């Protein structure tokens, strides 16, 4: 019996000691990359949402034809990835409602790298006002276009309503958001001044609750992306 136990222990000992052998020839990714997305028309943060702006990274020091990886942006218009391999990258912001960036940034990424991107939005949402009558919320705003020539067709406008500050496409209450969409389907040149003032109504909000609300205007670009307003809080008495 003792023999058996000592043999088992010997076996365990061998396994345990061999398990310590280093076999990974790569260091863990320790480079990081972060920054802000800046709306050049306002100088503030570019308004994003779930599934909106991403930062596309291509590690050109690894291969001439690298498979792209993406960093999704946060709702406040910043992004961060702290688990990247050190190297030279080609970096392009994609996916949101801004004029495409045709000249990607090429830079070396090591620990603590950062870069801010200046983006020109297709549309800027201005003068968002809220009027609450009973439980019915009326939102009114104007849209402006920093660059008019070649603007993709404007598809529709809709409110996004949620009970948390995380509000936007894919993070909203359907009955207060999707179903309150207003179709526009016009090119910018065909829109009158009146068309550019948009009113959205959300009736029957639950009383006694706080909602976080923003509006978005969607364009027919490659991503069918939306320009978003800032988030406002609405307290329904």
């Amino acid at each position, binding site marked *: 019996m003792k023999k058996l136990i000592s043999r088992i222990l010997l076996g365990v000992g061998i396994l345990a000691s061999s398990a310590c052998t280093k076999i990974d020839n790569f260091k863990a990714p320790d480079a990081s990359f972060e920054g802000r997305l800046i709306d050049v028309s306002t100088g503030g943060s570019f308004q994003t949402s779930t599934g909106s702006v991403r930062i596309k990274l291509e590690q050109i020091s690894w291969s*001439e*034809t690298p*498979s*792209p990886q993406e960093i999704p942006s946060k709702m406040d218009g910043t992004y961060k990835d702290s688990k990247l391999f050190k190297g030279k990258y080609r970096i392009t912001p*994609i996916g949101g409602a801004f004029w*495409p960036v045709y000249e990607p940034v090429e830079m070396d990424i090591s620990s603590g790298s950062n870069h801010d991107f200046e983006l020109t939005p297709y549309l800027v949402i201005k003068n968002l006002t809220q009027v609450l009558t009973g439980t019915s919320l009326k939102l009114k705003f104007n849209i402006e276009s920093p660059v008019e020539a070649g603007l993709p067709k404007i598809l529709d406008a809709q409110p996004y309503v949620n009970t948390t500050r995380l509000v936007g496409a894919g993070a909203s209450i359907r009955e207060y958001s*999707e179903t309150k969409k207003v179709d526009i389907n016009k090119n910018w040149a065909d829109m009158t001044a009146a068309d550019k003032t948009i009113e959205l109504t959300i009736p029957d909000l639950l009383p006694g609750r706080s909602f976080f609300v923003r509006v978005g205007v969607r364009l027919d670009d*490659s*991503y*069918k992306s939306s320009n978003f307003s800032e988030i406002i809080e609405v307290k329904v008495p």
Partner: protein
Amino acid sequence: MKKINKLIIALSIGLGVSISSCQKLDIAPVNVLTDDIIFSSESGINSYLADIYRQAPMEDFTYRPEGRDGKGFNIHHEWEHFWRSGAVTGEMVGPYGGMDIGGGFGYWPYDKIRSINYMIQTLPLYTSKLTEAKVNQLTGEAYFLRAFFYFALAKRYGGVPIVKTVQNYPEQTIEELQVHRDKEEDLWNFIGEDLDLAYSLMPETSVSGKANKYVAAALKSRAMLYAGTIAKYGSVNFVDGDARSAGYVGIPADKANGFFTKAVDAAKLLEGHYSLYNKNANKELNYADAFLDNSSPENILVRDYSISGRTAHSWDAVYSPRPMTGDGLSRAYPTLDLVERFSMLPITNADGTPRRFNNLSDLLPGLEPRLLATVYFPGATLRGLPFDTQRGIYPSFNGTAAAEVAKLPTERSYRLAGGTDALYEGKRIIGITGIRTAGDDYTRTGFYVRKYIDYKRPQNECILFNSTTHWIEFRYAEVLLNRAEADIELNNSADALTCLNLIRSRAGAPAFNAVDVTVNGVRNERCKELAFENHYWWDLRRWRTADVVLDNARFKGLMPYYVSNENKFIFLSEPETFGRNYNFDKKYYYEPIPGGELGKNPNLYPNNPNY
């Protein structure tokens, strides 16, 4: 004594082994088939071809659009036919949670294309043994098959490398084998040229399951129509990127009419050789039989299945509810949106209140026979059993249908149930065939698929891997629709009207007038005629309308209810019971080049836009 015997035996065995071992083992390996064995006899070639036909990209019963184990075609032992492209496009709703098929499954059949190229290269060496006519026929089949594989690639990826000779490794270097992408336009033209060759080389007839010259013409009409619409609509609605600037995806708009003309010309070649199935005066039964009758003059190319060959499929077991089959289960159901393409159903009175019916089946008279033969309505029967589909019971019903549907579920007075044992005043709340509050093995929309359902097959034979109904890959109705659509794009509406009215007459639908012959008119006719045949997905893509049709789309069902105090039935048009959203990202107009291939061959870059 025994010992001596053993010794003798051992010695003789040893002697025998050592004597025979002196023979030189220099015979041709008997388990390797050489070119001579395969290409010098018809049976040898037939077995070589059979393998290619078996793998041909037919999106048949077993086709799985998002793939399974890296494959989408001819998956071994696939029975779950409800994973179907119709179930993300709104023809049906099914198990897909949304746009689960946009990225494809990495289809890359260059191994089959190599087999075909090898055959094209080798056959001429055997002309003396096979006769010239035979070599021509087989070469024609090879060109058809090559075009078929390239067609399946072109509609997924746009331009891919055109490889028309056999590549050899290690005789050729890796650099030589890393071929470049070709332009999308060149690929479609190449497909057209291969099909012209195939048409000129093949005879007029063939055995079931094999190509003849008209099969090549049918594929050409389909392929050229695809290319024409991609040129026309893809130059308006597109995703920008390097692959587009280089011409790997997208065709210049001015090339559209050339392709449309080729589509019409190819379709006209079949005229007089095939006709629509019209054997039965009962239009509904006739349309159902058109998909079941082996001898249909409409069938251009079919794929056959057999139980003994272990190729049988499970369509009958997975598209009808379990009480009407032997085993299996269903999970994909036609939508009211598809049904309303035929006509709006007379379920609402002029004042907006739901029409009252004595029986569910009272809705059916007056509906288009083709519609009734395409989907099973509540009130229809199959194998002697009624579709008693009923979503619930209203103790009483007041007001309009629209007002009722707009209410929150909690405000509605209906009784729903999760199973057939739930009763209201002694009556079953839901039907045996649905609609349940949970689960999806009974209908979510009120309808079941009827197309290709073998209604004469006994219930106990409707089990998994037991259906042998052939799949019709090319049928004359599609060729007529290809022709009509290309005609309309070319402003040749008289010819289109003739084609469409042939189809509508067989369908039992009123004839079209000249004003009905529009792009939308022909597209709608195509959606109805070819429903559930895996066309709609590709049609939405080549029309570049998928991102509009599938824009956060939710689809509807037809919900039958029993109104208890009136002893009547009503039908309400409501969202299907799962309330799923379907979206299409514009980048899905092309699938991404498979990552594994990109890794092996950097010349396949740039990848398609936005991947």
